[in-house]
């Protein structure tokens, strides 16, 4: 019979797991030709936490997300997902890790030959072979309802707006119940109302699913709304990391300038 002490220890262990970093990027360097994009970048994200990565265009924010999901490999340094270094991992092995990750692309990157339902069903068809056709269809409807897009089920991606495409992209990213969610400019190019709706949606998902999320954005307002922590990048490295208030109190010239202009 479990004692109160045992239960307390189990609880402490669970908290330890929760606070262990899910994504760790350590001293990562990445160049494209002579252009150095990341210069010894280090950061980590815990379960249930949302980190917003901010910075000027071309400072390597999107490159960072692509490194984390393994679409590109670092020149040097480590990228650990659940403690496993993914740099240079074979494609099929990497696939097992990617099943635990969801990625929302900047322009949604929906498959233009498939309907909205087909887009969301696509990862399920490949990785949830245990699901019957009707179970899959139910799951697709459920995901679309979660992002408020039930009515677009049979529409083609070209027939829906940019904001709607982002919502569908988000539903696709959530299809395999990821533990890590990577969002590349989720509100870029959207009107203020659509941006606020996407922010609310991300917040709602965070509350319900407790994922580790990294959001790359230019939108400081959105970053403040959805993130627990902010990291400001410049010249391929983190200039400052912390809560918004900590950024506000910083004496670093670049941080002050960035906050002033945003």
């Amino acid at each position, binding site marked *: 019979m479990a004692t109160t002490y045992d239960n307390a220890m189990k609880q402490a262990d669970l908290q330890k797991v929760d606070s262990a970093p899910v994504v760790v990027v350590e001293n990562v360097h990445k160049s494209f030709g002579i252009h150095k994009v990341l210069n010894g970048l280090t950061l980590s994200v815990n379960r249930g936490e949302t980190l917003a990565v901010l910075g000027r265009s071309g400072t390597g924010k999107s490159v960072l997300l*692509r490194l984390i*999901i393994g*679409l590109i490999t670092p020149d040097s340094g480590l990228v650990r997902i659940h403690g496993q270094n993914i740099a240079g991992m074979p*494609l*099929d092995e*990497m*696939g*097992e890790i*990617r*099943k635990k*990750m969801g*990625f929302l*692309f*900047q*322009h949604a*990157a*929906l*498959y*233009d030959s498939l309907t909205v339902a087909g887009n969301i069903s*696509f*990862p399920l068809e*490949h*990785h949830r072979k245990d699901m019957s056709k009707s179970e899959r269809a139910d799951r697709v409807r459920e995901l679309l309802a979660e992002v408020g897009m039930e009515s677009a089920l049979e529409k083609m991606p070209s027939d829906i707006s940019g904001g709607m495409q982002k919502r569908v992209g988000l539903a*696709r990213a959530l299809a*395999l119940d990821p533990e890590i969610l990577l969002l590349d400019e989720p509100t870029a190019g959207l009107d203020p109302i659509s941006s606020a709706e996407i922010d609310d949606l991300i917040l709602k998902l965070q509350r319900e699913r407790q994922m580790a999320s990294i959001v790359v954005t230019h939108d400081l307002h959105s970053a403040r709304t959805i993130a627990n922590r902010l990291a400001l990048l410049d010249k391929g490295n983190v200039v400052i990391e912390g809560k918004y208030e900590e950024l506000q109190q910083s004496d670093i010239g670049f941080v002050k300038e960035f906050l002033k202009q945003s």
Partner: protein
Amino acid sequence: MSDTTALVNAGVNQMLPDERNKGMLAVAGSFASPLIGMFEWIGDLGIFSWRVLQAAVTPPYEWRELVRQLDEVGSKSFPLVALAGAAVGVVISLEARYSLSRFGAKSMFPSTLVYSVVQVMGPIITGLVVSGRVGAGIGAELASMKVTEQIDAIEASAINPYRYLAATRILACILMLPLLTLAADACGLLTGWFAQALVEPLSFHQFIQSGFKGATFDAFLPPTFKTAVYGLIIGLIACFQGMRTRGGAEGVGRAATNSVVLGSLFLILADVVLVKFILVVFP
């Protein structure tokens, strides 16, 4: 020495040694750059082929996508290939009748038509038509998916794009080319006979009997099945060009063009090797 040459030489002689070296390096660079690009292309193609091969032979297999591609490459190319084969049959029939009449060898007409269509024209015409239709289609489709990050999205969804996109398309080309060649051959023979029959009475039965008289499988199977190699070339080049595309609409256009041009070129070059190989192995 012409005045122009003299002036140029004078100009070169007046250059300082450093300037002359720089000029020579620039000239060497202009030759080296395309050469380096070519080796880079060959190296990348080798790596791409290895990845596709690895993906193709290891599970999970993408049966549904393969069937879709078999339909895309096979049944949708059939009308075009049949039409091309039919046209070639008529042309060979007209040319053969004229040439054979000049040498008093009109009785050789059926076998000339059969051998010309089945051994030479059928395979190469099928290859070129499929290269134009399917090669351009695959190149443009994958290039468009690449520039809109759809291929990255497939990879991010833990699906191997070399298996799902490339292996299925290449395999469909390999499997479908021999079947399409048979269709082109059949149409060519039919229209070739018909063109002849319009001028001189010749029953189809008589034409086939005379045309295939003394023929063995060795004479017809290798030229038909060599088109599987054409399929490999068409599919591989188109997938490679599509999946390495960079840039926007311009890149997509370039990928489609390169898929057709390089695919057709390598197909013709491969034919030289294959014909020699068949002649040696099946004398």
